């Protein structure tokens, strides 16, 4: 949403109330990230430890297999990389914006 599109004080619910449930998805917390988890499928044993531990539900899984990381919500905490038990780590943390440098 651009600044102009946001509703003003006359139309927002009173007292800062949020009247709709299930709106956390509208808040893309990926912008908070300083470090980015990078997944290497070749090293992955699909144990799903990362999926269990991720505090932001940002590990995507299909048919019981790890498929990637949802960067819209991943805050870059690094827990997934820490818990990954694969001998050759399947997730490593890289500094955000490293590629551009």
């Amino acid at each position, binding site marked *: 949403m651009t600044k102009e599109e*946001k509703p*003003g004080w006359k139309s927002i619910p*009173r*007292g*800062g*109330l949020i009247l709709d449930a299930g709106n956390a998805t509208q808040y893309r917390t990926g912008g908070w990230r300083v470090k980015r988890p990078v997944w290497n499928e070749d090293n992955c044993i699909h144990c799903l430890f990362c999926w269990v531990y991720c505090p932001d539900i940002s590990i995507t899984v299909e048919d019981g297999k790890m498929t990637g990381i949802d960067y819209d919500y991943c805050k870059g905490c690094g827990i997934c990389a820490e818990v990954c038990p694969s001998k050759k780590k399947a997730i490593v943390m890289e500094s955000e914006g490293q590629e551009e440098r």
Partner: protein
Amino acid sequence: MKRVALTGNEAVSLAMKQINPDVVAAYPITPQTEIVQMFSQYVADGQVDTEFITVESEHSAMSASIGASASGARAMTATSANGLALMWEVMYIAASSRLPIIMPVVNRALSAPINIHCDHSDAMGARDSGWIQLFSENSQEAYDNVIQAIRIAESANVLLPVMVNLDGFIISHAVENIDVLDDEKVQDFIGSYTADYSLLDKDNPITFGPLALQDYYFEAKRQQVEAMKYAHKAIPEVAREYEKLTGRGYGYFTPYRMEDAEVVIIGLGSTMGTAQVAVDELRKEGNKVGLLKLRVFRPFPKEELARMLAGIPVVGVMDRADTFSGNGGPLFADLNTVLYGGEERPELYNFIYGLGGRDINVSNLMEIYRYLLNARDGQTLNRVNYFGVRE
């Protein structure tokens, strides 16, 4: 309606009993203690349906009231002095979450030094918290204000908490004859309360008190300003209905012998009753003096006060609290702001008095009127005066 002899605390707890709130969460503190004690007796005796929550502090009393109110309950609490100060952060949350909680405050000085007696430093410390603030001159007004507060707080578009102030000991512990309504009359007057939103409404889930950063916080604050404007409208509307029921009229303030007055005192609370006697005495001697007893401190009735005071040569402003700004008390500051730039602006003088319960009697008030009369006649008088303090 019947006439009974009650202390201020008894009158307030009786009003609470007749209101029969869904939830009361309170912690005892002198001089408010009796309100909590007597109300808990009503609960124990089954005379009310209230869920009484015994909490471990005033911070929790206000927090529990907020939770109850957010669930859609009619919630009340009561406190004094340091108890009010301990509620401070949560009071802001009550107001900005737009929860119509009612709280009698039995005014007492804030420590230190430790003091249990009356002044208004507790209420004035909370003046910017977004609560509506009413002041009472005596037990009758405290009783009437508590009942009216329910209607003011719950008015559509207002939905703000209300603090009903009554002077510690001077009102809270003094017995006076007052008129009280029958229980059913009070119930008819306040009606039932249905909150627009409730945390317990599982079919319409909502979020109270969410995070609102640079993008929404300001809008929520602006809404509160608007709610206060609606409160300004609702207060006289509720008062008119209450007058139909009781014959007792209430406004933003009560003028006393203001016709042709050249020197006027304005102030809050029980001292205004004492000042009436001083006015009568001085009028007997031919002095053109009057009195303005302010009932509504927040929202501040700025236009009405400016109109009322325009053209009066000298106004003495009584403050039972200091701001320590070096520029006088809170009422003095507000009145200066309201009158600044107005036509026929009165000369304002501030008297800070009665801190920590320092007594103020009729002859003290006559002395203050005489300073003001002399100022009208050209004698110099300090802008801010500390009255009744030893040098």
